[in-house]
C-alpha cells in the first residue's frame, strides 16, 4: 500500500477557495453586522480556511486514524484552555458582594 496522492485539481480548488475566503473576510469587515457579529463572521471564515488547509494541504483527510486523534487532541486541549480561563474572567463581575 502506498500513500494517497491528492490530485492537482484539488490543490487548485482549495487554493481558489482560500483566496476567495480572504477577499470575503476583508469585504465583511467593513459591514456593521447586528449584535456585534463581526467577530463571529471573521472567525467563521478563518476556521473554514484553516480546516481546508488542514484537510487537503496537510493531507489529514487521507491520513491514518492516529493523525486524526492527534489533531483532535490539540483542539480538545485548546478548548479546555479557553473554556476554563474564560469562565473565570468573564464571570468575575457576577459577584455583587465582591470587595476591594
Amino acid at each position: 500500500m502506498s500513500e494517497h496522492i491528492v490530485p492537482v485539481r484539488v490543490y487548485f480548488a482549495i487554493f481558489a477557495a482560500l483566496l476567495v475566503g480572504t477577499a470575503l473576510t476583508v469585504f465583511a469587515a467593513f459591514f456593521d453586522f447586528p449584535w456585534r457579529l463581526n467577530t463571529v463572521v471573521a472567525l467563521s471564515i478563518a476556521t473554514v480556511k484553516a480546516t481546508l488547509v488542514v484537510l487537503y494541504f496537510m493531507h489529514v483527510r487521507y491520513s491514518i486514524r492516529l493523525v486524526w486523534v492527534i489533531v483532535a487532541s490539540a483542539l480538545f486541549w485548546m478548548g479546555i484552555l479557553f473554556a476554563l480561563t474564560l469562565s473565570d474572567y468573564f464571570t468575575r463581575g457576577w459577584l455583587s458582594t465582591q470587595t476591594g
Partner: protein
Amino acid sequence: MATHATTQDAHGHPALQHHFENMEQQREAGTLGMWVFLVTEIMFFGGMFLAYTLYRNLYPAAFASASNHLDITLGAVNTAVLIVSSFTMALAVYFTQIGKLRPQVLCLGLTLILGLTFLGIKAVEYHDKYEDHLIPGRLLPWNPFNPGVQEEGQPVDHHKLHLLPGATVKNVEMFYWIYFAMTGMHALHMIIGAGLLMYLLIFSLRGRFDPEYHSPVEVIGLYWHFVDIVWIFLFPLLYLLGRHYLHG
C-alpha cells in the same frame, strides 16, 4: 555494499532506517511525529490567542482604535502571499510524490521567495510602527511608546492615533504588546521556515527526494502550512476588528 545491493528489493530503499519495517511505516512515523510537534505549537500560539481574547474583552474600544491604525492593504496582501506560498508548498510535495524533479525544485524555490516576500512586507509594516512611535514600552529605549493622538477639528493625520470613545493611549499600548508578540513569534517561525526551505532546496537539487522517500518535504510542508494557518487567524483578529466602526 554487496549485501546492501541484494536487499535492494521493494523494502530496501537506501533511506530506510533499520528500526522501520518499510518505507511506508517510516513515512507515517515521521508524519505522526511532526503532528505531535505541531500540537505543542498550537498550544503555544493558543496561549497568545487567549491573552488577546482577554485583553480585547477588557479594552474593546482601544483594540478597535489600534487595529484601525494597522495597514489593511499590506495585511491582506501578506495573507494572499502566504496562501500562494502554501499552495506552491503543497505542489512541491505533490511533484516529489510523483517523482518530477524540476517542478519540485521550482515550487520549493517559489515557496522560499514568497516566504521572504512576506517577511519583507512585515518589515515595512514594523518600520511604519517605529516611525509612529508605536513600539510598546521601552523595548527601544531611544524610541519609547509615544504616539501622537488625533485631536477633534485638526487636519486628519494618518500617523496619529484616532481614538474611538472609551479608548486610552495606555490601553492601545496593550494592543501593540500583543500585536508585536504574536506577529513577532509568527515572523520568527517564518524565518525558521525559510531556513528549512533552503535546506530542502539544496537536497532537492541533489536529487535526494523521490516518490519512495520524501518525508523531509512532507514534514516541512506540514510546518509551513501550520504557520500559514496561524496567520489566517491573526489577520482578521489584528487588522480587521475595528473597521466597521469607521465605515459602518
